[in-house]
């Protein structure tokens, strides 16, 4: 990387850490450290909500998905706006009026301590592991692309984030998120402009999109109802609705964002910002992928984008076979380039419909040939290396950035990748610390102490979870498309935890026994469905939520109906109310 790019990344890191340090003066009390004294404006919280969800995996993984599969991944987000409306009407006012620090704290007031303890432990386990993946994903990719040491790259993501999150608490996290969103969106827009500028002079953006559309990259919607197809309109709308309701309504890493808002309406406004902007933002991310596909039609691209395998393949008995594939790819690539130019030309002026249709079919045929060679190369790599999960999806965007962007822009995009990762990591560390201290330490280990003590323990908890996530990241194996790995992990718990909150808020006669047994039943059902059917992960959220709600209601009715909760900090009358 050029020294100017290094300087841009260094300036970004300094800017963010300075933000955290500057805000550390307002965090002496526990409510200030974890909830910013419930004083933040909706737009800052809204940007923080979006920055928390948009990780580096989104930037590198989703652009890669756009390159491979086009816009179809956008369907994943169709349930999100509906979820935001439902949450604004239900959990947001409940949590705000209850003055809780964590979502799970509310469950004790409604049910009992075991339900709170179990859900908070589930959160701590799943979120800590997910944070490790969030750090590992960009670290592995950047270390491969730049040849950096993997451990040092993990520490480059982890250490500054741990530092400002520990020092400044949720205020630092939120205001850093606001700045990080600016860097991320700026980086994405710069990438789109660079991709458009990189098209040949005689290929317009419209003609380029027609070429992408010819091979299905512009086809966003799939209305088939098939639970074994990952991204369809229905899996996104229904499965995505349950996933979003669980993630934004029951996951402390998001709940804590809007608990910092000044009022119920400000909290609602922060969620509705995502309802309006999340899908357009994801379209922008996916369009980067689609435009990369078009860019690499006319500009040289390697047979495979992840080349760590090369030494192993070249020293294997199948080296000659691979060299043959490389030559075959070069020829297929050149044929496709010519066909793409012909098709782009046919989109303009007075080309006849028949000639345009022929140019299109020729392009599709040549693209199929290129993809076939790439598949053969992937199979060969898997055979030689024994890595059955080999996938180069996550390496397309970094390859484009490092090999085709000018000095300065490379630094900006790397800073955007850092910003995307750090904003997510910071929110997750902050919420892990909050749940550890509020749900475990203060509730079960040391109920009476002053705020200074709890803030000190909170800082230690942030440090602990940060180091834990870095260790997980070091050991995390690379798994296919990383964004899916994180979502699959979450789907084992998310739907079931959502079911517990549906019981708490929507079933008056539900009690602690029902919630606890329902939760176990829900997670067991999700596990069984995942192991024994071809159901894709988005539907697992629906399974978990429905099973918990049904089983929880039945068990509650069989065990005597509603109880008043057991939070010792609340009088019995208040708990019943």
């Amino acid at each position: 990387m050029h020294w100017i790019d290094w300087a841009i990344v260094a300036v970004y890191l300094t800017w963010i850490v300075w933000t955290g340090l500057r805000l550390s003066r307002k965090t002496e009390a526990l409510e200030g450290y974890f909830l910013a004294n419930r004083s933040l404006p909706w737009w800052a919280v809204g940007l923080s909500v979006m920055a928390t969800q948009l990780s580096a995996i989104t930037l590198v993984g989703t652009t890669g998905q756009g390159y491979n599969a086009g816009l179809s991944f956008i369907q994943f987000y169709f349930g999100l706006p509906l979820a935001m409306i439902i949450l604004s009407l239900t959990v947001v006012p409940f949590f705000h009026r209850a003055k809780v620090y964590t979502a799970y704290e509310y469950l004790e007031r409604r049910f009992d301590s075991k339900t709170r303890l179990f859900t908070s432990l589930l959160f701590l386990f799943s979120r800590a592991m997910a944070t490790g993946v969030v750090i590992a994903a960009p670290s592995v990719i950047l270390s491969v692309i730049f040849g950096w040491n993997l451990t040092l790259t993990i520490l480059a993501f982890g250490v500054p984030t741990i530092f400002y999150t520990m020092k400044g608490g949720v205020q630092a996290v939120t205001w850093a998120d606001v700045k990080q969103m600016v860097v991320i969106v700026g980086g994405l827009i710069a990438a789109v402009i660079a991709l458009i500028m990189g098209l040949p002079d005689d290929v317009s953006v419209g003609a380029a999109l027609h070429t992408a559309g010819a091979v299905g990259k512009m086809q966003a919607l799939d209305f088939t109802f098939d639970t074994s197809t990952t991204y369809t309109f229905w899996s996104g709308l229904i499965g995505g609705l349950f996933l979003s309701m669980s993630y934004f309504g029951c996951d402390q890493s998001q709940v804590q964002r809007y608990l910092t808002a000044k009022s119920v309406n400000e909290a609602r406004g922060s969620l509705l910002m995502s309802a309006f902007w999340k899908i357009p933002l994801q379209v922008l991310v996916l369009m980067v992928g689609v435009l990369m596909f078009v860019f690499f039609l006319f500009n040289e691209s390697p047979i495979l984008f992840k080349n760590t395998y090369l030494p192993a393949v070249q020293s294997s008995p199948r080296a000659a076979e691979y060299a043959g594939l490389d030559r075959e790819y070069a020829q297929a690539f050149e044929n496709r380039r010519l066909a793409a130019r012909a098709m782009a030309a046919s989109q303009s002026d007075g080309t006849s419909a028949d000639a345009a249709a022929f140019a299109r079919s020729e392009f599709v045929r040549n693209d199929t040939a290129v993809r076939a060679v790439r598949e053969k190369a992937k199979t060969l790599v898997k055979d030689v290396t024994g890595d059955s999960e080999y996938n180069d999806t996550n390496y397309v965007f970094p390859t484009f950035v490092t090999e085709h962007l000018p000095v300065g822009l490379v630094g900006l995009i790397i800073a955007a990748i850092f910003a995307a990762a750090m904003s997510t990591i910071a929110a997750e560390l902050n919420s892990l610390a909050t749940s550890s201290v509020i749900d475990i330490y203060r509730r079960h280990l040391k109920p009476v102490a002053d705020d200074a003590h709890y803030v000190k323990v909170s800082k230690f908890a942030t440090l602990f979870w940060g180091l834990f996530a870095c260790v997980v990241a070091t050991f995390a194996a690379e798994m296919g498309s990383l964004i899916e790995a994180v979502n699959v992990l979450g789907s084992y718990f998310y739907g079931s935890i959502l079911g517990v909150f549906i019981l708490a808020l929507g079933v008056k006669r539900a009690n602690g026994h029902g919630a606890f047994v329902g939760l176990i039943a829900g997670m067991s059902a999700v596990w069984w469905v995942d192991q024994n059917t071809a159901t894709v992960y988005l539907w697992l959220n629906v399974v978990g939520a429905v099973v918990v709600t049904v089983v929880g209601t039945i068990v509650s009715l069989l065990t005597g109906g509603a109880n008043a909760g057991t939070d010792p900090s609340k009088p019995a009358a208040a708990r019943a109310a």
Partner: protein
Amino acid sequence: MSPAQSEHPGARPGESNLSFTYALVLVVEVMVILSLYWLGRHFG
């Protein structure tokens, strides 16, 4: 989008009627989905 909407009768402090905003969210989502459908049809 601003959360500052007119107070409705019986609203608690800091809470007001956001029905219009919720309706707007739905309208925008439908428009976005229709736009994506159009993109697929036009360029596909």
